[in-house]
């Protein structure tokens, strides 16, 4: 209740008591209004004398770019320019998604003229892009009667990017690569590290490439052919439609997917490829493909902001804007493929000339951790696993690379299993 309302309430009560006193013609009742009138007058006087100084606020995060749930220290300082001492109580408004770990996000004290005050507290934030803005509180009259609410604003931003695991080399075979050297094998002879085959020596061949053992066997000069390794465009697509994600226990599947996508992006950027990111679900959140550490930061910031959404415009996976992706580039889709129509999307993308790798977040085991002891849970598990197998083997037959990611395990295990399986099939 503001000071004005306090004065109003006291005055109304005084008026009521006075009226009652006048009505009953009782001087003793009328006298009861006097403390109320004195209180209202004192409060009014106190409020009139109370000045609100201009405050200077500084808020600094120890690290404005942090990983999710990591501790960040916040230093909050206020100062004022009033020639009189100021009694102030201020509290920093901590954003939703942040939790206080230690310290006091408030300052309650008397500030001498020109004096400042500082407090330090620690927070941890879930994945997200935060903008901490307001401090709320009050300035108190020196004798503590009048109180004036104040709201100070100071914008501070904190990016809490997802944690991600370091993945080993991910094997992909895009149909198109760039002219620059990279780490993607191209099935063409050139300068590389992996041996593609051998052929007879022709004039001009580098003598360092002569395979002496083969030459001795064939009694003619044979040279090794190496496989060209080039850089390529990798476009990561995250299916962020709300109905594709759920919260199971304390885990949100979208958070796991964001971490997985960050790991994949990091793996390709580390080997020199250009990586783009499309988060499909809320707005068209598109990070244009580029290489380098700066691009990794851009991708992490995009992932920090990403949220599942149920917007009608992005309700169907088949409306993915393929014009964003270079023809023949590698697409890596993180999706659970909720419907028959969704299952056809990777096949359509293959038909359009893209190389597609589907990372399928498998929630069955994660859900079972919450359904221990429930009847039919094992039967449900078998049915769901069979359904997933049918869908994924259909895609695999269509040429789509498939990584079935059990969300209770690290993504590296899923990639390792998928690549071991693929090599087994090739042999």
């Amino acid at each position, binding site marked *: 209740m503001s000071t004005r309302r*306090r*004065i109003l309430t006291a005055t109304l009560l005084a008026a009521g008591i006075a009226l009652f006193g006048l009505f009953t013609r009782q001087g003793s009742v009328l006298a009861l209004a006097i403390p109320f009138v004195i209180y209202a007058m004192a409060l009014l006087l106190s409020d009139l004398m109370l000045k609100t100084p201009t405050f200077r*606020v500084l808020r600094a995060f120890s690290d404005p770019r942090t990983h999710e749930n990591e501790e960040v220290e916040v230093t909050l300082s206020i100062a004022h320019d009033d020639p009189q001492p100021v009694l102030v109580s201020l509290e920093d408004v901590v954003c939703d998604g942040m939790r206080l770990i230690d310290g006091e996000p408030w300052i309650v004290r008397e500030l001498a003229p020109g004096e400042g005050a500082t407090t330090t507290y620690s927070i941890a934030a879930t994945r997200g892009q935060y903008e901490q803005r307001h401090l709320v509180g009050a300035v108190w009259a020196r004798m503590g009667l009048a109180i004036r609410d104040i709201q100070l604003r100071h914008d501070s931003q904190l990016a809490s990017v997802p944690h991600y695991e370091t993945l080993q080399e991910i094997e992909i075979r895009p149909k198109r690569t760039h002219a620059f050297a990279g780490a993607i094998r191209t099935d063409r002879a050139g300068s590389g590290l992996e041996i593609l085959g051998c052929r007879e020596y022709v004039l001009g061949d580098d003598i360092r490439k002569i395979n002496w053992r083969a030459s001795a066997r064939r009694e003619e000069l044979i040279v090794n052919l190496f496989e060209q390794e080039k850089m390529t465009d990798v476009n990561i697509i995250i299916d962020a439609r709300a109905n594709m994600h759920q919260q199971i226990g304390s885990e949100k599947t979208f958070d796991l997917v964001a971490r997985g996508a960050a790991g994949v992006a990091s793996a390709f950027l580390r080997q020199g490829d250009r990586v783009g990111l499309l988060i499909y679900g809320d707005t068209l959140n598109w990070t244009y493909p580029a290489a380098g550490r700066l691009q990794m930061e851009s991708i992490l910031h995009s992932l920090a902001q990403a949220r599942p959404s149920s917007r009608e415009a992005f309700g169907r996976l088949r409306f993915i804007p393929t014009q964003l992706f270079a023809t023949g580039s590698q697409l890596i889709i993180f999706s659970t493929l909720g419907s028959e129509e969704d299952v056809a999307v990777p096949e359509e993308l293959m038909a359009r000339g893209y190389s597609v790798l589907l990372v399928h977040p498998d929630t069955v085991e994660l859900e079972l951790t919450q359904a221990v002891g429930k009847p039919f849970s094992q039967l449900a598990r078998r049915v769901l696993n069979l359904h997933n197998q049918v869908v994924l083997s259909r895609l695999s037959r269509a040429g789509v690379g498939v990584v079935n990611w059990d969300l209770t395990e690290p993504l590296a295990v899923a990639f390792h299993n998928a690549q071991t399986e693929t090599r087994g099939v090739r042999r």
Partner: protein
Amino acid sequence: MRPVALSFITLSGLALFGQTLLHGESEPVFGIVGLALAAAWLLLTWKRGKAGPSAFLIALAGLSCASAAQGGGVLLPSVAAAAALFAWDACLAGARLRADAEGGSRRIARRYALTSWILLGIGVAVAMTAQWIELRLSYGLAIGMALALLLGWLIAVRLLGASRGRGDDVKTGDEGSDQEQAGRRKSPGSPSHTGSIE
């Protein structure tokens, strides 16, 4: 701030009950109800720490009036009414002050308590003085007093409005320098994008 409120609530209840014990032979119910109300308020404030319902204030002020109307002096009813008022105010002020902010919070509470007790003392003293000089209430004087009260109230509201402009809450603060703001406008992907002011 909670101890201040609790002390005023207790005082209010005890003053009403004391008035009943001393002079309330005809209507003892006011003191008993007053004590019960004060106990309920005490309990709520103790448990929640921020209960400041105006209903308790109105009820206790009403009971004080009724008790004073029975005759038997103005001291205890005026103490009861004024204590209820300051208890209500302390509850409201306490809601603005964090109880867990140690040093500064106590200093504010101490000053607030001192001022409130002084004001309560002045109020009761003036009320006693008014009774002592035995002002006879004629209709003309009553109407004159009512008009004076109304006028005083209007002036107070006018003064308050003039000092504030619109609304009670004040926004103030520092948005940071131009350089800092330019820093904040950088693209989110830039690693130099900090958003905080060092």
